[in-house]
């Protein structure tokens, strides 16, 4: 893989294609989780391929190729949502309720993708996807999303709390009022 990255950095498009195709399905599924339809998700994949090949020379550590690629995909997804004015960014509120349950690997039984999409804001969604779908560590997530490690964890637990409350039928925002 490192050899392919080095070739791609020299402009070898076939080497880059081989690299990209290794992750294109993951990129598509992550994009779909954001944009919620096939057409836009395919646009994200194409944009990601374009941007990443254009900028692969800037990748300093080839071993972090996947992390770097996923970051571009998330960025492209959010760009499309912005263009369509379908996203409202919420600033992470570190004072919000943080779950006492730190069993992060125990995901709520019965959670569906629709729950994930409908209940989480973009930061929460990004972290949940990177944690559970990409198996990133918190450190990798904080570097990918360029946010402090503590904030990353706080948002993560907040997202889990939201999902649990949704499944229980409670309205977490009503509780906060």
């Amino acid at each position: 893989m490192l050899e392919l990255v080095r070739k791609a950095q020299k402009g070898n498009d076939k080497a880059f294609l081989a690299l990209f195709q290794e992750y294109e399905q993951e990129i598509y599924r992550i994009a779909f989780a954001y944009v919620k339809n096939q057409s836009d998700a395919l646009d994200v994949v194409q944009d990601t391929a374009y941007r990443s090949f254009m900028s692969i020379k800037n990748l300093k550590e080839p071993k972090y190729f996947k992390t770097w690629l996923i970051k571009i995909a998330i960025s492209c997804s959010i760009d499309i949502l912005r263009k369509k004015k379908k996203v409202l960014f919420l600033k992470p509120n570190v004072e919000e309720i943080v779950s006492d349950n730190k069993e992060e690997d125990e995901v709520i039984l019965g959670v569906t993708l629709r729950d994930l999409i409908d209940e989480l804001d973009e930061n929460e969604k990004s972290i949940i996807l990177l944690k559970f779908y990409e198996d990133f560590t918190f450190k990798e997530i904080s570097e990918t999303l360029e946010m402090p490690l503590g904030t990353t964890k706080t948002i993560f637990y907040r997202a889990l709390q939201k999902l649990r409350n949704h499944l229980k039928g409670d309205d977490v925002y009503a509780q906060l009022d």
Partner: protein
Amino acid sequence: MHNLIKQEMNKIEIPKELRERSKMGINQAKEEMKKKNTRFKVGAGVTAVLATACAFILFTNGTLSIPGNEAEISQNEYTSVEIPAIELPENGSNAKMIGLVVYNGKVYTQTMSEIDPEVAKAIRGEKLGTTKGNIDEWSKQDAYSVEFASTIGVADVYTVDGYDKDFRIMSFEEYNGYVYAQFFENLNGITIQSGKDIFGKLNMVGNISSAQYRTFDDWNSGINNFFPIENLEGLNRFIEALNHAKPLSRNDNVDPLGDSLNSEDYRELTLNLVDGTNVKLTLLKDGYIYYGYMYDAYFQMNEDEFSKLWTQLK
């Protein structure tokens, strides 16, 4: 560890177009990097063939439109619809690329009709040439006058057995053991007198092996929740009636598509032909039919004929 999120994510169906779209993005970058490194010259060797070329589609409220064409769409007293050749808009800043190939002076655009890669070899006809992959959103008008100019990178182009090459051609390439095959159709610079001018060229009558449909919600969410159509005899009558459908201009009429993007009014119909091709049509409850990426025209069928099929799609 019970990671339902990962399981749920992996249920998202991967569309067939994924590979092609990855390649398109990389080719776009490749061509842009070439432009930065070389000076592009348009010399006397480049000859203008017809007023062709544009791959740029402006998306407005979820529908497709080609700028500059709206005033030119017209319908004569016999309800034919004239669709002018695609032209490049002045401002491509909001443009989005689609696949296109210039062949024999005409622009062929990517289509919703698909071909399974394994079957593509069987119906691949005569090789016409190889695309140049020289068009992107920064291309000048004269880039489109070059035979086999395209937005799809370098690919071999063939006729398709059983189809008029003035209507349909096929890109075909093999890479790393994978076959990439895609249809391109000439749906601009034409006059449509009736449904036969489009649907007749798809070779559907008497050639349907099976068919299925899905609702708008499933289509829009990329969920392959298809329902089979059991009554093929009724379906064939519908297909025959398509040849007599009335063409309508999307610019001269109130296009019903925008108000019909819901599962009550909208169906995606997929027709699987015996030669392995799959034709996708969009049907609206009130008797309207859309084909693929036709930007300027849609069709209306006799209410009685249409409703007989629609009752099968509930």
